[in-house]
């Protein structure tokens, strides 16, 4: 048990050392502390995996923080199959991205600060996945949010960056509000916030209802949906997805770690962790499935036409997260987690490759100004190509296995919306392949379209960056092999492994149906790649014509369905108007300053009035005292 403690606390120690000593002592060597710490965590995590595979799970309180009556808050670890998978994903990605950052952040003035935040993030994320109670989960949940806020706004002198940080923070508040109420509801219902008793008792409440605003609401549906609110915010699902693309303002390693591989998947983890609650509510599951499906389709279509290399990958992330929710929503939690796990590798890899490209292009993000980079940066090209093959679902790659499992279970599962989400998922598979390869072709093939200066500057990234790429690439290809389905002669080990926690969903269909589903998704993937090749390699005039011909659609997609504008119109602008015109003083750009200055002004007037009572005049004080005595005596004795 004590070894497991090291997993989160090594990064915490690294954070403390860096934040205290980084500025004056460690400076350029700050990365060593963080890397060693997270690598240490990884080693322990692997040991934990071995233990867990031997069937050893742990649920134990380490430290009681508050004990008051039957209310108890503690730090405790639940280490089971689900946790272990998350641990491996988090520590692996984190380690590699830490190493990559050494090259990427080289020479940055806040070098030590960056690593300190990365370590803090890793700590919070590990606390989140290892929690054995909802409050600790919530602590980690808010912790990763805060780190994400810091890291998105890392270049805080850049306005767009600090705005993006703020946006992420505020949008997430909406989700977390629901999440918080959900936890409170759990406490009210079960009298505890610990997973084990909650999940054990959940079945007993399956038919309970609560009266809410005059309606009888199914209790488990309510709790599940409130929890899902948190997931929607954190995992950037519709309609709270708007923060994630903007979060790309942060340094690329941050995008890879936080906004692709780990933090954003916390929402999926939450749903999987709470599967005993979700499974009790068909409505909630349907909502999860449809939200996932619609988000994945929606994000994928936006991804088709974007030109910003990181944003395409960001939309792709949203889309893939939608896939995971789709899986959870049809009851295939283990398939969702499987996709989470494979996705972490290839998506982190895609981001790091994008970072490598940006590194070579001196920060250029626009696809239209790239092209032909493959001869300059072969390693980046090759790894990114393989990652794209994986995400496109080409057989043999990791993404193929996880995606196929989701689609098959959606098709064959008991969910009433299964067939529908399967159809959407298949379309998304096609779109995913298309935009992924559009990105590859536009970036690496053809002629270079940037300035002469940029062309001169092109170079492959240093080893410290390419080696993590290669290692992640191995993951992007091979991580799926633990879950090869029985159909292809595999053992479906992943599902078997997760069975104690997430159950074993059975598809009800014939072998031929299963072949059909697989074939359709493979065809969708390949036709996506083919179409991309046609558009961007062979007939480069088609996309332009198409965009002109369907200018309305193109514009709609290019502007991301105007969601940001819609929110701006519906929420942001009225809010700003209110702030400006009604609450004078909240107009200041800095949130805290606004809060600190604005609200006192409201109460401040009142304060000024009461303040006048304190005249500085002794007799007035005495008179007030005596009046107090008089009032008390009169009320108590003249009855």
């Amino acid at each position, binding site marked *: 048990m004590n070894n497991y403690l090291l997993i989160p606390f090594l990064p915490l120690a690294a954070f403390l050392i860096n934040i205290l000593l980084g500025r004056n002592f460690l400076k350029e060597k700050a990365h060593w502390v963080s890397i060693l710490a997270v690598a240490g965590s990884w080693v322990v995590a692997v040991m934990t995996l071995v233990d867990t595979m031997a069937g050893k799970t742990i649920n134990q309180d380490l430290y009681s923080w508050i004990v008051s009556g039957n209310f108890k808050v503690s730090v405790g670890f639940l280490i089971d199959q689900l946790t272990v998978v998350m641990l491996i994903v988090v520590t692996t990605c984190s380690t590699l991205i830490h190493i990559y950052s050494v090259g990427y952040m080289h020479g940055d003035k806040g070098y030590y600060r960056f690593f300190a935040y990365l370590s803090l993030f890793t700590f919070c994320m590990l606390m989140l996945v290892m929690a054995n109670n909802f409050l600790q989960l919530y602590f980690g949940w808010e912790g990763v949010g805060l780190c994400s806020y810091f890291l998105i706004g890392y270049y805080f002198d850049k306005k767009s960056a600090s705005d993006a940080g703020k946006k992420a923070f505020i949008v997430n508040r909406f989700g977390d509000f629901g999440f918080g109420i959900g936890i409170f509801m759990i406490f009210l219902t079960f009298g505890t916030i610990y997973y084990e008793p909650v999940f054990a008792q959940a079945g007993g409440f399956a038919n309970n209802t609560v009266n809410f605003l005059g309606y009888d609401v199914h209790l488990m549906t309510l709790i599940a949906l409130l929890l899902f609110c948190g997931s929607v915010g954190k995992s950037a699902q519709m309609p709270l997805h708007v923060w994630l693309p903007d979060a790309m303002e942060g340094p690329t390693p941050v995008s890879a770690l936080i906004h692709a591989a780990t933090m954003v998947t916390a929402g999926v983890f939450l749903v999987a962790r709470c599967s005993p609650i979700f499974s009790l509510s068909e409505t909630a599951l349907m909502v999860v499935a449809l939200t996932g499906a619609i988000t994945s389709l929606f994000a994928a279509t936006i991804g088709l036409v974007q030109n910003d290399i990181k944003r395409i990958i960001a939309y792709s992330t949203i889309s893939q997260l939608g896939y995971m929710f789709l899986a959870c929503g049809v009851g295939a939690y283990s398939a969702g987690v499987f996709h989470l796990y494979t996705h972490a590798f290839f998506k982190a890899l895609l981001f790091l490759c994008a970072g490598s490209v940006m590194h070579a292009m001196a920060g250029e993000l626009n696809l239209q100004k790239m092209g032909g980079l493959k001869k300059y940066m072969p390693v980046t090209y090759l790894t990114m190509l393989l990652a794209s093959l994986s995400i496109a679902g080409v057989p043999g790659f990791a993404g193929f296995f996880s995606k196929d499992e989701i689609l098959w279970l959606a098709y064959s599962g008991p969910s009433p919306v299964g067939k529908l989400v399967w159809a959407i998922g298949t379309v998304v598979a096609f779109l995913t392949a298309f935009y992924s390869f559009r990105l590859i072709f536009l970036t690496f093939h053809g002629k270079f379209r940037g300035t002469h200066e940029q062309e001169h500057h092109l170079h492959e990234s240093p080893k410290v960056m390419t080696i993590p790429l290669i290692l992640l690439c191995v993951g992007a290809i091979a991580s799926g092999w633990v879950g090869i389905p029985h159909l292809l002669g595999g053992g479906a080990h992943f599902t078997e492994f997760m069975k104690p926690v997430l159950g074993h969903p059975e598809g009800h269909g014939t072998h031929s149906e299963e072949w059909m589903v697989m074939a359709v998704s493979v065809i969708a993937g390949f036709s996506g790649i083919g179409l991309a090749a046609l558009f961007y390699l062979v007939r480069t005039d088609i996309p332009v014509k198409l965009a002109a011909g369907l200018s309305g659609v193109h514009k709609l997609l290019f502007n991301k369905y105007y969601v940001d504008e819609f929110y701006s119109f519906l929420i942001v602008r009225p809010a700003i108007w209110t702030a400006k015109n009604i609450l004078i003083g909240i107009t200041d750009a800095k949130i805290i300053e606004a809060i600190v200055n604005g609200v006192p002004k409201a109460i401040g007037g009142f304060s000024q009035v009461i303040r006048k009572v304190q005249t500085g005049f002794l*007799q*007035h004080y005495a008179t007030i005292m*005596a009046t107090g005595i*008089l009032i008390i*005596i*009169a009320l108590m*004795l003249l009855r």
Partner: protein
Amino acid sequence: MLAKLFFGYYAAVIILLSLLVVTRKNPVRSVMWMLLLFFHIASLYLFLNAEFIAAIQVIVYAGAILVLFLFVVLLLNLREELKVKRFIGSWPAGLFVSAAILAIVINVIRSFVLVAPPGRYSIEYIKEATHTKALGTILYTEYLFPFEIASLVLLIAIIGAIVLAKRKTRSH
């Protein structure tokens, strides 16, 4: 009956003198009225078989505390003092509050009945042992502890008076 008459006299004079103390413009006169008041209160204590208390009322209150007051009062510029108003502007509020509290308190204690059983220090006992001896005995046995604390309180008073009122500063 005689006792009641005597009480009536003392009560009337005590109240009158108290009023004079708080209403005189000239502080010296207030102090003087207070002196007289303390003597009356001391006599009242004699009525209540508290000779020792009556004695220290005269010695300590009248002899020490009031003299101290007188010294300080003489520091003031009396001529100036007689020119300004004696009450603050909002004196009716003070009057109302104190009168109201008094009314309620009197209403409460008017119906007060002694319920506690009488102790062992009956009038006869005290007469026999003399008041000072009876009081002294329990002061130095039963109430030794508070007595010691009281000595510290007096020590504090000495230190305080020196620290606050000495003229020369002795800073390092």
